């Protein structure tokens, strides 16, 4: 009798044990926001893409909200730190004394790849999903590919040959070494061409935000492609891509310089909407706050680059503390609690004019180049350029790029590097300049994680 009870007890325990394995498998898939759950319906998939834009536009540093414009502006000859006893940490960009362990260049690199990972996750998730509506699926894939191309464009320009992560597999990504500059550009080009195919012609109209140009469309991908073609020396392709934008009636150079950076700007090809209630663009934060004693100011060299009568000098810059220091005033709104009037401009039509101008000048179409340069100059209240001859026209194009696109997205820094003018231009300005300063250092953490990966020259 007793033994029978023991046997029954043992059986009971044995059964429990068998159920044990099943029991400890939590239905995590249902509880947590896994990628397969996120990309199972349109709304969550849209939220994932919105998450990428929020991370792009959030705060003041990150990768895309302010950091590139500020850091690259300081590295080149656009921006200075206002002299004071406590200089901001960004001063190491101005003095070109970055080191691989520094927080800021490291954060820039890390935040770039953070966006890459998010974009890769969206691309993977959207591609794998079987339940998204086709239009949403195509658009989100296109947006994410466009975003990835944009981020890699800056990574390759700031850091040189960078690892090319195209998925979210941990074990695979950890083993990546540097990809060549050419292969990064090949991926950027492929992504943009893919995005051109997938993205709709019109901007995505979110309810309550109709008319905003804050989500890329086909033209946005084309505009970015125009820039990539220019950087790669593919002049004809750059010309034709820029022409698409210039000929598109939706885009025009805003006649008033004060309207260029507003949210409704007709010059905008792609803008980022500020995402914090009481926080406007990073540019406004850096140059306007605290009022009267900003940390960052324009270099005298840049101020000297404005021709007499250039309306941009008076509309886009301003003297502070009397007229001792000048700050950029492309963005003016510091507190958007009543609504954001300004959006962070990422791509705009004026750039397409100077892209086409340069592409035309490079292939000898000087008249066309001068016409494009003059389109930009006219808006700034200047007469047409007097430059003649290829070299002079090219110089005029670069001068126009310098003043028109000042403090925007590191254009000056990238232009100096791609035109091989960094050394000759910066040495007189910056006695400490070394040619190896053109690339930022790869963070220590990346080198540690990828044995065999070489640091950029000058940082060993």
């Amino acid at each position, binding site marked *: 009798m007793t033994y029978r009870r023991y046997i029954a007890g043992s059986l009971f325990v044995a059964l429990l044990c068998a159920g044990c394995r099943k029991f400890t498998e939590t239905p995590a898939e249902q509880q947590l926001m896994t990628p397969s759950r996120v990309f199972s319906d349109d709304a969550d998939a849209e939220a994932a893409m919105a*998450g990428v834009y929020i991370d792009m536009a959030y705060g003041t540093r990150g990768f895309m909200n302010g950091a590139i414009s500020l850091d690259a502006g300081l590295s080149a000859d656009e921006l200075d730190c206002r002299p004071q006893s406590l200089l901001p940490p960004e001063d190491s960009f101005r003095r070109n004394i970055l080191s691989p362990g520094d927080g800021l260049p490291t954060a820039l690199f890390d935040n770039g790849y953070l*966006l890459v990972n998010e974009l890769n996750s969206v691309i993977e998730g959207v591609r794998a999903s079987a339940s998204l509506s086709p239009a949403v699926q195509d658009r989100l894939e296109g947006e994410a590919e466009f975003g990835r191309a944009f981020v890699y464009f800056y990574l390759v320009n700031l850091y040189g040959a960078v690892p090319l992560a195209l998925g979210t597999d941990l074990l695979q990504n950890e083993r990546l070494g540097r990809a060549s500059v050419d292969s990064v550009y090949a991926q950027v080009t492929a992504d943009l061409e893919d995005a051109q195919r997938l993205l709709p012609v019109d901007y995505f109209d979110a309810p*309550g935000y109709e008319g905003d140009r804050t989500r890329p469309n086909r033209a946005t991908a084309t505009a970015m492609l125009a820039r990539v073609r220019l950087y790669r020396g593919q002049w004809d392709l750059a010309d034709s891509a820029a022409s698409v934008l210039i000929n598109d009636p939706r885009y025009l150079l805003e006649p008033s310089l004060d309207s260029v950076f507003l949210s409704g700007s007709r010059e905008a090809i792609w803008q980022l909407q500020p995402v914090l209630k009481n926080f406007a663009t990073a540019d406004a934060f850096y140059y306007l706050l605290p009022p009267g004693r900003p940390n960052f100011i324009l270099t005298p060299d840049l101020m000297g680059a404005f021709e007499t009568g250039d309306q941009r000098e008076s509309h886009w810059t301003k003297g502070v503390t009397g007229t001792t220091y000048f700050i950029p005033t492309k963005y003016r709104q510091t*507190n958007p*609690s009543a609504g954001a009037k300004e959006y962070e401009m990422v791509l705009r039509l004026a750039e397409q004019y100077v892209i086409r101008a340069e592409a035309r000048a490079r292939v000898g179409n000087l008249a066309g180049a001068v016409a494009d340069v003059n389109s930009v100059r006219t808006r700034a209240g200047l007469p047409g350029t007097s430059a003649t001859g290829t070299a002079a026209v090219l110089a005029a194009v670069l001068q126009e790029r310098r003043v028109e696109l000042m403090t925007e997205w590191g254009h000056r820094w990238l232009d100096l590097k791609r035109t091989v003018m960094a050394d000759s231009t910066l040495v007189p300005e910056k006695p400490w300049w070394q040619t190896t300063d053109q690339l930022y250092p790869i963070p220590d953490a990346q080198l*540690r994680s990828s044995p065999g990966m070489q640091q950029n020259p000058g940082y060993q």
Partner: protein
Amino acid sequence: MQKIFALFVLLSLSQAGLAQLRSVPGRVYSFKDVKDLLKERSYDLNCIHWLKENMPPVEMHLSRDMDIPTILMVWLEGFKVTGTIRGPIINLYYTGDTSSVTALYADVQGNIYDEKRRPIEDATITVVGSGTTCISKQDGSFHLAARGFTTLVNISHIGYATKRIEVSNKKRQVIEMEVAEDNLDVTVVRAYGSTSQRFNPGNIYTVVNKEGIHTPGGSPQDMLVGKVPGLLISQTNGVAGSAYRVMLGGQHSIQGNNRPLLVLDGVPLALDGALDAIGTGSAQGPGGANPLSFIDPQDIESIEVLKDAAATSVYGSRASNGVIIITLKKGRSGDMRISADVNAGFGRMLHVSPHLSTLQFLQLRREGLQNDGLAPTPDRLPEAWWDTTRSTDYQKVATGGTASVWNGGIQITGGGQHDNYLLSGTLHRETTVYPGSTSVERRSLYGYWHGESESRKLQFNFSGIYSWQSNHLPMADLTPFGLLAPDAPGSSWGTPPVSIPDIPALANNDYSGDVYSLFGHLQATYQFSDHFSLEGSFGFNGVLTAEKEALRIAGQDTNYHPPAQLTLTNNQYKHSMVETMARWKGRIGQGRLVGMLGFDIQQRQVDYWSQIAQFATDADMNASRNADPNQFVTANNHIPYRYAALYATAEYIWRNELVGTASWRRDGSSELGEQNPYGDFWSVGGAWIFTERFFKNSNVLDFGKIRASYGTTGNEPGVDSQLIETYQPTFPSRGYQGLQGLHPVSVANPRLQWELNYRDELGLELRFLHRHLWFSAAASRNWTTNQLVRVPTAPVVGTGKVWRNVAGINVVNQALEFEIQGNDLKIGSFGWTSALNLTLPKNRLAAWPDLEYTPYSTIYVVGHPLGDRKSFQYSGVNPGTGYYSFRTHNSNGIPDASEVYPSAGLVQYYYAGWANTVRWLGWELDMVMDYRRERGYNPLVMLDRQNAPGMEAPSELSNGPVEWLDRWQKPGDHATMQRVTTQKQSLAYMALNAYNQSNAWSMDASYFRMRSVTFSFRLPKRLTDKWKIGTAQLYVTGNNLFTLTRFPVTDPETQDPAVLPPLRTIVGGIHISF
């Protein structure tokens, strides 16, 4: 006439009569005498020859009026002999089964009870001399073979005082045992059962809660501080209700969980660490609130601290950091008794170094500029252009208040023979030393109910706690704001770009949190037979938090256009447990075996929910206290956890001399990766009570035991959502085009496993001088391998870090523990009880293969304690140049990044605790003190990293402690601080940076502290009788009364100058019982 009497009927004659018969000394009758006596009355006595030969003479007191059956009864009582009366013939029959003289005597029969008349099972009855033993059954009954009418026996049982009495086979014995005053036999709670100090083969330290006085600390951890060898408990800060750092047996895990498993009345707690997920923070700091604060100390019966393999291994994958079992008070049968306790008092911050006065502060700033060769212009030295007649002690403004403490509690207990209960309610209120109105309040109810069937075969216990805690605190610890320049205008935010913290305005940013805790445990046992019982147990505990943080525009510098931000957080931790256990116990050979097989299922769900909203004005925020769906982004996450275990233990105690034990457990947990969901853990242990064999008659040594154990435990990852790739809402924002965002936050690692810990221990326990002196020593080692390390992924991966088990890492902890106790040493009418413990720990990172290829190569050093670091070697302030100097090859004196050497960091050398109780008549003095010899963070370096002496700091938090004055000023000076500088481009600043990265980061942080002193007076009985109360006790308790240390700047327990040091509290109260 034929009368047939069964003698057992006679035996049931009134005991009083028998006693009377026996009380008068009688005459001794031989068999022949009885036969003759019967003959006189015309009766013949017949029996077998053997009986006639062997019946011993019996002393009887017979009287003439006795009838024949009575005479026979008196004569034959206690023999295995029965008789019949058939007419004039009496026949005697032997009822035993063997023919020996001793077999003639009947067995002693009886029942053993405790003082509450509950049967005691398994008591051992040993005949003194012969060593014959028997064991009592479940109803307390026993049968013992006897060799005479009276037998001297020892009756013993764990938890009861061994009783030596003479038992008689002439009647059924009723024996009452008393709960042991011998502390060796007091019940010690252990995993899934209990044992006693005497037989315990493991390392379990019991702290029994003091009856009566309700100490004012308000947290269970206070009961343990300084009392348990191997256990270090430190306050994280001095804010009411904050978490404690608890470390048992050293740091086992490099980056994983280092908190002991907490088990409350058999139920593992859902929150074994801190309530660290609580909101985004309050003044309670990053450690959050104390997860045990829902248990009122007055409801605790005892706390057991389990350390070695024999004690902990049966808890398997969660026991590698040791186990702390909290046992709640139980009811007591009897008439209803009520006790009440009320106390009140105050607390102030422990002494810290004063900050510089305006004069000293400006002197340092000016000196810095002078050293840098700069003129003190308003731009460089704004403080000198303020009103320098001001010299505010901002330390006092921020943290100089007086906290009040108030406690009240009531306890009711009572019950009948088969059930009893205990009900308890407490109120606790504390405030802080910050300005503004702050408070931490707790109300809790505790109930216990025990019941059993008439046969006592079915029993149940229920315990339940409900507690509601509400905290009103500043959003951040205000201690750092004490560093505000002493002449700063601290009542406005300053003019841009300088933002001067307005301390009163900061109080506008408030945190309020409600914490609701519910705990319940129901346990039922059914005793199938003498040997076999089945136990079922159901436990639940839940913690619900509802928190609100209001960051107001009025509490921020408006020059930066800050938004008002409201954070609402609701977290829920729900944990349930179902356990089934079969237990078998019985005698095998000359020993007792207890075996157990159990199955345990646990389930936990953690839900996080939070909303953050930003508002343009404070008024908007106040108006919209709740969620506006357009403004809020919600974070919503559920983290489920499931756990199942099968375990078995066996313990064999041979002749009360040798103990052998073994345990095994298989755990399965959802926290582990798909590839490794199970683990097996086991242990073996043994003890030899050598005083059962040697020193038996020693007057010096009462008790001696050697014990040893070896086994394994595990440490669960505790990283839940790290197992798979997950998305979470992006940081609260206005959304993008009105859309709220999601982004990936983790990356999957399906290979996660637990850390595996091997441990062995050897212990010696001795008791001397008639229980007055106790000595124990233990030597333990444990190795933790398969360490979980949060390895940064390559930045390219874009997800930060990921947890991995790194094979081959081995962390070794060794310890020597000693304890000496003097129990109830009497000197005249003084009674003194004292316990001194000493722990010598040693921690070592024994191996980390390929450490040099990980980012931790700059942090950890193989062969050194985990607290050691590689850093520059600081060699003092150069008296000639005034710069910090280092071991370096560089001519400028600043070492290269490669010139780092292993040096001592956060290391414990030894720690000791000493508890004393002195009694004199109704007076009693309790003292607990401890000493820690250890290294801690150097607060001066921590300050330097924020802002160095002489420099202007952001927000003008530029002041420092008076230690700053000991700086180099001119060649030849020997100082602890280098020449001050104001410039970040100076050589002095480079030296300062190197200094902050040097081995100066840690320093000696040893201290002695009087943890608590309680002085109490028990009102004399004549007064309490007159006032018709049971007992009344008046007391005063002081916590952290004084500290002896050489530690600079702040308190050595908290070490961080930016953290509020612990408070010194003094409380007076009264305890009354009816």
